[in-house]
C-alpha cells in the first residue's frame, strides 16, 4: 500500500536532485509527515544518501518527522492573538498534554502546533481544533474543552 504512495508521487518526477523539495512536499501531503521510510525511498529515487535528504528536509520547519496526532490543536501566536494571551493558551495546552508545539502526544491522539495568524484576528485569541476555529478562547474554556478529550 505505502509502496504505491511513493511510486505515485515519484511518477511525476524525473529523479533529479533539484526536485527534492517538491517531492518532500508531496510526500508530506500524502502521509502527513516525513517518515524514515519516506527518507529511504526518496534517497533511492534521487540517488542521494538518506543523510542528505534528511539534512535538507530538517532545514525547513515545514517538514515534520513524526506522525501527526489524530486531533490537531493549533494555537495562534500571531500578533493579535499574542497580545490577547495566545502564548498563555499555548502554555496551557503544553502543560496539559505534556508536550511542546511541533509534537504529538506519544499515544498519537493529540497534535500540538502553533500558527502565525489564522486570518481571523477579530476573534483573537483563537485556537483551531481539527480545522474548527474556536474564538475568544480563555484558558479556562480551553481547559474544559481539553478535559473532554474523549469527544475528540
Amino acid at each position, binding site marked *: 500500500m505505502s509502496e504505491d504512495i511513493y511510486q505515485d508521487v515519484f511518477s511525476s518526477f524525473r529523479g533529479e536532485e533539484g526536485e527534492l523539495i517538491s517531492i518532500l512536499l508531496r510526500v508530506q501531503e500524502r502521509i502527513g509527515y516525513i517518515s*524514515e521510510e519516506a*527518507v529511504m525511498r526518496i*534517497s*533511492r529515487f534521487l*540517488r*542521494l*544518501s*538518506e*543523510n*542528505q*535528504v*534528511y*539534512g*535538507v528536509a*530538517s*532545514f*525547513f*520547519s515545514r517538514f515534520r*518527522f513524526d506522525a501527526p496526532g489524530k486531533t490537531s490543536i493549533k494555537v495562534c501566536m500571531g500578533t493579535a492573538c499574542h497580545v490577547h494571551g495566545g502564548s498563555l493558551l499555548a502554555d496551557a495546552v503544553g502543560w496539559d498534554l505534556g508536550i511542546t508545539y511541533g509534537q504529538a502526544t506519544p499515544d498519537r491522539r493529540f497534535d500540538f502546533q502553533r500558527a502565525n495568524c489564522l486570518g481571523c484576528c477579530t476573534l483573537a485569541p483563537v485556537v483551531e481544533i481539527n480545522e474548527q476555529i474556536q474564538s475568544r478562547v480563555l484558558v479556562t474554556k480551553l481547559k474544559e474543552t481539553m478535559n473532554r478529550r474523549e469527544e475528540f
Partner: protein
Amino acid sequence: MKQHTTRMTLTIDNKTVTADTGASILDVARQNGIDIPTLCWHEQLSPHGGCRMCIVEVEGLSHFPTACTTPAADGMIVRTHTAQIREMRAEILQLFLSEHTASCLVCDEQEECREYMSTVRKAGVTTGCRYCPKDGQCELQAVTESLGVRDIIYPIYYRGIPVETEDPFYDRDYNLCILCGRCVRMCQEVRLADVLAYKHRGRDAIIGPAFARTHLEAGCEFCGACVSVCPTGTLREKARAWEGAPDREEITTCTFCGVGCQVRLLVKEDRIIGSLPADDPTVNQGQLCVKGRFCNTELVNGHQRIRHPYRRENDIAWDVSWDAAFELIAEKLRSSAPERTGMLVSSNLTNEDLYVAQKFMRVVMKTHHIDSTARLFYGSGFSAYLTLMDRAVPLSAIRDASAVLMVGLDTRFSRSVVGVAIRTAMKRGIRMFTLHSREHTFSLNADVWLQPEVGEEYRYVEALVRLAAGEDVTDRSIPADMRVRLADVARALSESDSPVILVGAEFLQYDSSRAFLAAVAQLADHVGAGVLTLPAQNNLYGSLLSGSFPELLPGMRPTADAARLQKLESLWGTSLTGLTDAWNADHLLRDDCAMQFLYAVGALPPVHRGAAKFTVFQNMYPPEPYCSADLVLPTAAATETDGSFLNGERRVQRVRRAVAPPGIALPDWDILCRLARHMGAEGFAFTRPEEIREEMAQVIPGFGEAEIDARGILPLAFDAVMHVSGNGTAQRPPDSDHPFILHSSVVEHTHRGFPLAAWVEGSRILFPEGVLDISAEDARALGLRDGDSVHVSGASFEEIYPVRIVRQQPRGALHASILESALTHPNPQPVSVRKADV
C-alpha cells in the same frame, strides 16, 4: 598541463604581487607571506565562505568579501588588516565563542592557569580548553589568540548537547562545534560517503546523519577523514584524545591489506599515538580506511603484547632468555627429521622476514616445508586466485577506466580508499557495476546491481562470459530481470576501452570459488579488462616472491627449476638437492598430521594440540590458551622494524621503524638470523634489512634501495603449479529440514593470524568474528533478538552463534564470518536454525 598561464598583478597591503589567474585572494596573500585568519577554509576542500574570518577590504567594493571565495583579479587593491576589519573579525569571533563552551579561551588567568591550574572552579561550569582534547592544537584557540580577543560581549548561549560516544573509534562533542562545515565537505566532496549533513537550522543547527542515527547505522566508513580536518575538539579520536601533539612523524606502509596505503605515524615519547594518511599521489591519495587510520594504534600499543620469550608446559608458563630459547629450539630441531619439520608464516610479514624464514628452512633445516597461511584463506581457489593476481593493473587504472565491475567487494571497511577512487570516477561519469548477493556500499549507487542468490555468483560471471562472447544466456535459474541486467553489463564492458574488474573477498571460500575465479579470468580476457585483486593479506605478493611456499623458490620460480636451484646453491653456499616438499599448511587441518616440529612465525598454529610434538609460536600477542605453543617468542610489530612490502599492484614499498619493540622483542628476521647463527649456520650474518635486500636483489630483481624509493611496479609472472585442497562438493538447495542457506566467509580483517577484533576494541563492533547475520524478517519469524544465541545445524555441521540482525541480509540467507580453522564445507550449505536454549 596548461602551456602558459596568464599572470595578474594586484596590490595586497600596499605590496605589489603577481599571481596566476584563477587564484583566490587568500591563495595570493598566503603565497606572498601575508597571513589572513581562516577557520572554515581547508586546503583539501572547496572554499565555503562560511566563517567570515577571512573578510578583507577591496577597493571599489562596498562590502567586505571573504578572501577564500573571492577570486583575485588584475589591478585589485586589497587590504587585509585595517583597524575596521580587525574589529569586525574580533566581533564575529566573539559570536562563535558565545556558543563555544570554552571560556578559558578568553579567560584573564589563562597563562597562570596553564601552569598552575589555578582556576579549577571552571571545571564544573564549562568544558574549558584545559578539558578539551584539542588544547594546544586547536585552530579556534590559535585564531582567538592571534586576533587578541579577550572578552565576549554577547550573551553566552551554551547548547548542552550530550556528547556522542556510542560509535567506535571517535567521539563527538557538538557543544564545541563552530559549524565550519569542514567535516561535511570532507565526507561529501572528498570521501563521497555522504554520511554527514547539516541538520536543522539557526540555533538548532547541528551536524550529523539522518534522524538521530549513529554513524554506524548511517553507513559511515570510519575513515576518520572528518576527524582529521575538524579545527576544534568536536571530533576526537577515542584513542588519541588526550595525547596532545606528537613529537615526530614517520611515513610507512599500512599492513592491513593489499592496497598498501602510505601512512604517517604520529610518535610521542617513543610510542605510536596515531596514524594519518600520508599525502601520497601514487596509492592512497591522502585517504585511508578504518584499519589504517584507527586500528593500527591500538594494535601496536596493546598492553598484552608479548615482551619476553617464555616457555609453556602443562599450562604453566615461565620466562626464558633468548639464548635459552634458541638452545631449546636447536635441540628440538636437531632431533626432528626434515620431512616432519615445518614452518608456517603469515603473508603480513615483511619481504625481508619472509626471505630469511624460507632461507632458514631450506639452508638450516634442509626442507622446502615453509608455507603461508594464505593457502588456507583461499582454499580450493588458491591457484586460480594467484593466476588472476597476475593480471593486476595499477590502482590508477580505476581513474582511467570507463567502466568498472566489482565482484564480491564491499569497500565500506576494507579497501575503502578504492571505494573513494571508484566514487570519484563515477562523478566523472564512468559506468559502474557490482555483483554481490548482499546489500553493500555500492548497491544503491551502482549503475547496475547484479544480485544473485547466495551461492549462484559464479553462474552470473559465467553468463557474462557467454554474453561477452556474443552468445545468448538462456539459463532459467537466473531471473529474467537479472538476465536483462547481465546483458546490459556485458555490453557496456565489451564496449568500454579500458574496463577494470575488482575482485573482493566475499566469495573466496565458496566451494565454487575456483569456477568463479576462472570465470572472472575468462571475462577479463573477453572484454580486455584489467583485474585488481588487492588481496586481504597485505604482502601476499611478497610471500610468493620471497619463496615462502613449498612450491616456490625466491623469485617466484617453481621448486623444480634446476637453474634457479643452482643459482641459489652458489648464493647460499649449500646443496639444495633432495629437499622434501610434501607438506603444506592444508595438512594442519587434518587430524593425522604428526609433525615433530612446527614453527609459526606470525601465524596461528592449528587449534588441536596433536598437530606437532613441539610448536614455536612467534608473534606480537600471546596465543589463545587452547592454541598449541610450547615456546612463545615476542616479535616486533611492523611499526617497529624496517623492511618492505609488495602491494597488490606489485609495488615495492618501504616499511619504516618508528619506535622500539616492547620489552626484548625483536623483528622476525632478526630472531631467525640469531637462531641460525646459534645453530652454527653460515649466511645469516645480517644485521640490517638492507643487507638482506642486497642478497635478495641477486635473485629477485627490484630490491635495490633506489628501486624501492622509486616505488615502481615489479614485472612479475606467476607460472608455478600450486597444490590446492578442494572438495568441490556440489551445493544442495535448501529443503524442508534445512530451509536456510548458510554462507561462511573467513574474516579478512586479520593481522598475523589474529582477527583485528581480538585486540582492537572498535573493530569488534565493525567486523566481529563468529557472528551470524540474519535478516530482520527471518529474525522476527524465529523470535530472535540481536545478540541471541542460535543453534545452526547442517547435514554434517553444528554450531552455536550469537546473531546480528542486519537490514541488508536477504531473506533465507545467513552469513557467518569465521576463522580459517572453523571453515567447513560445503559452503554455502543448507542449514536449519533454532533459538539455542540457554
